[in-house]
């Protein structure tokens, strides 16, 4: 066993049974009054085919057992409220509590999408103001708040491109993606009916304008570009790249996953982007540790605006109304008006910061990432020399010589009380270790993380086998991910 370490999160160490194991016949968490109407046989009333069979082995537990079960499990979790969450590309920034306070204002928390417009003026004003601010931040003419999250925003954006090109007479055939792209980019293009052509990045992890120029022709509908890209580097040729695409009538789609590196400093609309999405749950700090809900607002230049999903907000005689008269719209992409609670939090974040505050957040995010890069660069191989923006990407080449790979180092990081960084992405980096601290970390926390990483680098040299079998100080030791994937057990059996 290794020695005790610097920063260890204390665990509640007992194991926890499954609800199925806690089950005792006849226990319930509810009590119903005596039946005071005649009993009816469901099969007779509805037809036998419409009656569900009893669910076998359904857990029978009391309310307090359920509450304790899930509360105990929740203490095993790791989240941004416990410490640094350096998952690169995911932008796990702290979620300010003012956002939660605003989202819980009764008139917002209890608003119903079927309320009449006359009773929804406040909610509609919130959406209108958010659209306006996002348009300003993006440098775009119009914004839709409907998409439910990032990939949905991408899909909406590419469908807008398709609708626009169809209106010009030819939807075209292909979408270009750099080889560093998030996997959702090619997936989006395929689902939108396009072939995907992958472009090889240059030695700095950037799009090569010469490679692009050779690939663009009248078959290309759009290129999907992440900027800064997934290696955390700003595509410095973006204006030239947009020019090459526009010259052939192709659209520039920007994946705004990394927009938190630009807010208040540079506007995609000013460097040639026609359409982009922004993950409000990343850049605008709404909670997303549990997988959502998110929001994938999409901004467009005016030539794409007629195709935006409907309905659209419209002000008539001082009153907000929903405009459904949108003959060129691609139609609704989400029930009601998007994930409204997320939108409220995003607007609260924007208004609490104001323009100068948002710019400071961006600059601090870059400062934090570059601080980590500077502290770790002698211990881990930086993937590209180009300056880092809001995240830094290392490769595991130094550690690989001892047999320890990015995944092993990540597991050992858990022993030190940190959530791992992003492992093995982007795929163009050999054994990628992608670290994004965000602006919200105090220096002491960044130092604790860097100290842990440096300690692990030394452990890899001194006792690589120990690192390769990490974690050692957790409730569960290393799980067999390969067997879990090859022979998944998806159902508990007694």
């Amino acid at each position: 066993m290794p020695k005790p370490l610097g920063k260890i999160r204390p665990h509640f160490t007992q194991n926890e049974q499954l609800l199925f194991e806690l089950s005792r016949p006849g226990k319930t968490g509810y009590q119903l009054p005596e039946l005071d109407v005649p009993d009816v046989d469901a099969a007779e009333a509805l037809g036998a085919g419409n009656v569900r069979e009893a669910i076998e082995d359904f857990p029978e537990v009391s309310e307090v057992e359920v509450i304790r079960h899930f509360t105990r499990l929740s203490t095993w979790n790791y989240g941004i409220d416990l410490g640094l969450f350096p998952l690169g590309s995911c932008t796990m920034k702290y979620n300010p509590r003012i956002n939660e306070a605003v989202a819980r204002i009764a008139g917002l928390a209890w608003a119903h999408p079927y309320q009449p417009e006359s009773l929804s003026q406040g909610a509609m004003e919130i959406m209108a103001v958010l659209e306006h601010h996002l348009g300003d931040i993006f440098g775009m003419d119009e914004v839709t708040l409907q998409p439910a999250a990032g990939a949905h925003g991408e899909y909406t954006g590419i469908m807008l491109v398709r609708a626009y090109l169809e209106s010009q007479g030819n939807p075209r055939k292909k979408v270009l993606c750099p080889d560093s792209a998030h996997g959702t980019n090619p997936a989006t293009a395929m689902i939108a009916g396009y072939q995907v052509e992958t472009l090889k990045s240059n030695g700095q992890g950037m799009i090569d304008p010469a490679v692009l120029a050779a690939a663009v022709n009248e078959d290309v509908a759009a290129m999907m570009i992440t900027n800064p890209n997934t290696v955390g580097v700003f595509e410095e040729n973006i204006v030239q790249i947009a020019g090459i695409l526009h010259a052939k009538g192709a659209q520039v789609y920007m994946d705004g996953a990394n927009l938190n590196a630009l807010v208040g400093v540079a506007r995609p609309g000013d460097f040639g982007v026609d359409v982009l999405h922004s993950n409000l749950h990343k850049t605008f700090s709404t909670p997303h540790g549990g997988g959502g809900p998110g929001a994938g607002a999409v901004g467009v230049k005016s030539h794409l605006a007629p195709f935006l999903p409907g309905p659209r907000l419209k002000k008539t005689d001082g009153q907000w109304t929903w405009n459904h008269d949108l003959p060129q719209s691609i139609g609704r992409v989400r029930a009601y008006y998007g994930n409204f609670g997320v939108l409220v939090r995003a607007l609260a974040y924007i208004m609490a910061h104001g323009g100068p505050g948002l710019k400071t957040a961006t600059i601090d995010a870059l400062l934090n990432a570059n601080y980590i890069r500077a502290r770790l660069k002698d211990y881990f191989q930086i993937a590209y020399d180009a300056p880092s923006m809001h995240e830094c990407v290392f490769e595991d080449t130094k550690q690989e010589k001892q047999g320890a790979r990015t995944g092993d180092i990540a597991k050992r990081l858990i022993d030190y009380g940190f959530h791992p960084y992003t492992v093995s992405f982007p795929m163009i980096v050999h054994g990628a270790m992608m670290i994004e601290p965000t602006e919200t970390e105090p220096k002491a926390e960044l130092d604790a993380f860097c100290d842990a990483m440096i300690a692990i680098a030394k452990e890899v040299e001194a006792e690589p086998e120990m690192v390769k079998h990490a974690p050692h100080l957790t409730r569960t030791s290393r799980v067999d991910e390969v067997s879990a994937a090859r022979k998944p057990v998806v159902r508990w059996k007694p």
Partner: protein
Amino acid sequence: MTYPENYRYTKEHEWVSVEGDTGTVGITFHAQSELGDIVYVDLPKVGSVVETGQSFGSVESVKAVSDIYSPVSGEVVEINTLLADGPEKLNEDPHGAAWLVKIKLADPAQVSTLLDAAAYQAYIAG
């Protein structure tokens, strides 16, 4: 690792071995090594037509899902059924028992345009 002299290779890390007008296609040792533990292999149906450079299936490892690009054009005449229940064979014997598909070649002469073993090894070293 040895790369058989009688196979031809692609920069996408597939190999093809030709007997008569049939090409056996697989992924290289280097490819499986980069992918890590392979957990699932998705292959085309027998009878489907594949084209050079086009994806005909995918290999899923614990790290990533990667397309397999056909090194040759033709019709799929057989797929390796061993891989459905034993994807780990791709890690164990990528140049032998874990071949992926057999393709009736549209143009057997096309194979000579691919990399030979020495050129492929120079490419991955490089």
